[in-house]
């Protein structure tokens, strides 16, 4: 088991842990926080996985993904704040 694969597996376990907050969170804002944490972890996983797969093109997916998931978070935040 290479160290890269170990790191990626632990990060996936952390995603499942963050999902506990997604289930339990008393308000919607707590759930958005959990979703934001999942976003960051997925981007980190994608960057590390491009080393495992040995293909440089895969790292571009992480950039696009980081930019686009941010749009979803901003949209939900605007709705929560009553500005939409």
């Amino acid at each position, binding site marked *: *088991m*290479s160290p890269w*694969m*170990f790191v*990626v*597996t632990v990060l*996936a*376990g952390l*995603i*499942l842990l963050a*999902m506990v907050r*997604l*289930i339990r969170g008393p*308000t*919607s804002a707590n*759930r*958005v926080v*959990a*979703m934001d944490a*999942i*976003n960051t972890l*997925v981007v980190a*996983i*994608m960057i590390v*996985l491009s080393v495992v*797969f040995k293909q440089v*093109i*895969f790292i*571009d*997916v992480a950039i*696009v*993904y980081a930019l*686009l*998931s941010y*749009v*979803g978070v901003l*949209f*939900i935040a605007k*709705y*929560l704040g009553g500005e*939409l």
Partner: protein
Amino acid sequence: MTPYLFFQGLVLAGLIVSGILVVTFKDLLAAAIASGAFSLLLALEFYLLQAPDVAIAEAGIGAGLTTAIFIIAIRGTKRYEEEE
């Protein structure tokens, strides 16, 4: 079981959990947030299956566009919630 398969099992477990959450939440905004998390993990799964172009499309449509459409629909209709 190889580490790679174990990691993919973790991601699939996250997909199943968030999919169940989308169906069971009574608060529609929370369901929209869970659906956002679902499409984020789906993009990661496409990435794992060596399809970066599909992953980019899924990140754009699932995380950005679908969340925005759901939020606009909730604003236009009704958000069922008990208390907050």
